């Protein structure tokens, strides 16, 4: 049962005031199903379709309509649905967990309690309203063909050292997310700023060496693959690993000093039309079958012996892994003043990138 592909890619440039629209839409499951589940997510369809296919291939399954959105747009549209009391999406899944948290905090999510959600750790379950469903790392990506093993940056310190020399060949060839355009990029950068003093040196090194802040995981990884960029910093590991599976030149490294761990957050909007079906889908995502499907899509990554060699960390998980927990502290990064100041700091490092894409996936 091949899904009918209805991918619809929207050009969004210059559409600031327009109603935000999904970047792509796809449906899974029987066309004549009695119940339909509208899932909106930031996850690339390619990454997420496996799990939806399995869910909709079960007997008497519902149909899933999946809309792929940019994280900021998804937040806006969900918030406005919530405020208008509209029956819109039945489930919203976003890698911008701070925005998801804010939606739940502001009362736009509906609680779902089940055996599966009980099993989640506290950092991945807030009020039974927001749930962390994946396990993805913020990694450093490089092209094995262009960088020899001695130069490979295994930590942020290595990266700073590589950028330090004035004649470094990495000048202008390190890329990271544009935090204004990418909700995920902002989240990672803000988390970096909380984690360590390294962030100051790192952003300074980025500034001096003319690092590139640009949009979108796929574009950054494309750049690494074709040699435009030698190194990409803070790329979402799931995309890098998926690309590495096709292109053996791409290698993802989990920084040794610390590695941010992101759990993509799912919530059921307050006005969902099919909350029970959405709950069932959520339970499926958390079930063994769902988790193994997510693992094969690289949305759940193992850092121990089961995972890729480059992601194994020398330190124990407790010291190196920094999960981005679902706590009210996520709201700080969303504060108007805080965000303005943080972006201003960022802009002072990457002055020329502000005109690039306004909104993009991760």
């Amino acid at each position, binding site marked *: 049962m091949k899904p009918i592909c209805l991918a619809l890619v929207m050009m969004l440039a210059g559409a600031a005031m327009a109603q935000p629209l999904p970047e792509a839409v796809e449906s899974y499951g029987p066309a004549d199903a009695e119940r339909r589940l509208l899932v909106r997510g930031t996850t690339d369809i390619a990454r997420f379709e496996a799990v939806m296919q399995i869910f909709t291939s079960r007997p008497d399954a519902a149909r899933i309509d999946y809309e792929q959105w940019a994280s900021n747009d998804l937040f806006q549209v969900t918030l406005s649905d919530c405020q208008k009391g509209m029956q819109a999406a039945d489930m919203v899944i976003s890698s911008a967990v701070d925005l998801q948290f804010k939606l739940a905090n502001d*009362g736009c999510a509906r609680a779902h309690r089940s055996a599966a959600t009980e099993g989640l750790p506290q950092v991945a379950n807030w009020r039974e309203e927001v749930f962390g469903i994946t396990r993805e790392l913020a990694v450093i990506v490089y092209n094995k063909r262009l960088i020899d093993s001695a130069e490979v940056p295994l930590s942020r310190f290595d990266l700073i050292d590589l950028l330090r020399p004035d004649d470094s060949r990495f000048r202008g060839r390190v890329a990271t997310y544009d935090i204004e355009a990418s909700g995920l990029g902002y989240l990672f950068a803000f988390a970096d700023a909380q984690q360590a003093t390294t962030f100051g040196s790192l952003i300074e090194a980025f500034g001096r060496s003319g690092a590139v802040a640009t949009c979108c995981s796929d574009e950054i990884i494309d750049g690494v693959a074709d040699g435009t960029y030698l190194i990409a910093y803070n790329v979402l590991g799931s995309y890098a690993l998926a690309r590495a599976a096709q292109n053996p030149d791409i290698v993802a490294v989990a920084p040794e000093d610390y590695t941010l761990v992101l759990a993509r957050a799912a919530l059921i909007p307050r006005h969902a039309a099919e909350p029970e079906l959405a709950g069932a889908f959520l339970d499926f995502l958390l079930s063994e079958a769902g988790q193994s499907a997510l693992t094969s899509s690289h949305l759940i990554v193992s850092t121990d012996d089961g995972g890729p060699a480059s992601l194994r960390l020398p330190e124990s998980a407790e010291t190196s892994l920094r999960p981005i927990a679902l*706590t*009210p*502290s996520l*709201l*700080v990064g969303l*504060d108007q003043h*805080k965000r303005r*100041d943080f972006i201003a700091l960022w802009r002072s490092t990457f002055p020329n990138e502000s005109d690039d894409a306004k909104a993009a996936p991760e």
Partner: protein
Amino acid sequence: MKSRAQRGTRLTGSLSFRLGVSLVLVLAIGGLAVSLAAYAYGRSAAQKSYDRLLVGAATQIAGSLRLRGDEVIVDIPVSAFDLLSLAPRDRVVYAVFDDRGRLVTGYDSEEPPEGDDQFFSGSFAGEPARYAHVRRQIAERSFLGAVDVVVGQTIEARRELAQQITRNALVAVAAVGLVISGLAFLAVNSALRPLRQLERDFALRSSRDLTPVDVEVPQEIASLVAALNRFIGRIDRQLRVMRTLIADASHQLRTPIAALRAQAELAYETPDAQEQLRIVEKIHERSRNLSQLTDQLLNHAMIIHRADSVDLEPVDLRVVASEAVGQFDQTLSGAELELRIDLPEEPMVCDGDALSLVEACKNLINNAVAYGKPPITVFVQDGGATLCLGVRDRGDGMAKDMWADAGSRFAKRSGVSAASAGLGLSIVNAVAQAHRGQMTIRRPTDDCFEVFLELPKNRGAEP
């Protein structure tokens, strides 16, 4: 009374039950009071703890205020929200307002606070919430005024903490209640043990055992046991009177009646009329003695019975003496004896039973008539602490070695004499004892012999 006694014991509930009920009441009321207190305490403790977190967060935010030109800049520290994360499930809302009440940053759903209350209640996202308000005064060239920081949080964690505190307190109260109940059970058991001991003592008693109860009992039921013992003693004495009467009667009456019968038979068989008349005279004398003996036996029994059953009343002994003399004169109509009577002027009042005292007095007169020499004087006098009622005569009286024994029955002789059954002094003695007094015998001078009752004075009658 009789019908009640026939029905047997009337149950008015059990002591254990009553104690149990009052204990349960005390525990229930106390438990309720403690529970309410625990709930109030839990609420206020939870409120205070989480209010501190709110104020801490608001203060941190207020501390992060800066001025850029005339614009207030807020650089919210993450630690402020880490503080709020200590209530892990609660929604957070915050807002910063400048001196004109305009939102600087935070949630635009919030209104600038009115008044200076540090805490107030409200709601957020449809749930009850608690807010803390911190005001920071800024005095700069470019900005002069107050900036208000409001931080709110829903109250799930407070509720949970309050419930937890209350629950723990209730568990402690329940445990204490159980311990108290256990101790109370033991205490009631031990308090009721003497009663059970008493019961066992009575159950094991033989039907003829009328000795006093000898069980160690606490103060509270000692009076009950004492009353019981008095009651048993009375029954014992009355039974003894009855037994004595029967024994005395059978012992004392059998011989004279047999003698009477023998003499009557003799008279019947005697042909000589002169001789017959002499025997009839003897029969007459004997029957008179027998009648007197019967009187004495019955009197003795009656007096001992009255001693237990009649309440003592104030009695003037002069009246008693006169009465006794008067009655004696009536019974001894043919006597040529002269009885003197020696009474003081003032009333001689003691608590007593007039009838018994008159009887005792009459017995003393009888004795004096029988064994003493005239003149016989009935006297009443004030003996200091006691009052004396007695009889004096000029005879030799009884031998001194018999005095100590004089009060017991049949002390002087056994059997029947011509004039007395020997019960006279024993009746006097019994009356004296029933009046908590004593019988005294003395010989003040060689030609004078006195037997009298010493009776305690009536206190109320004392001048």
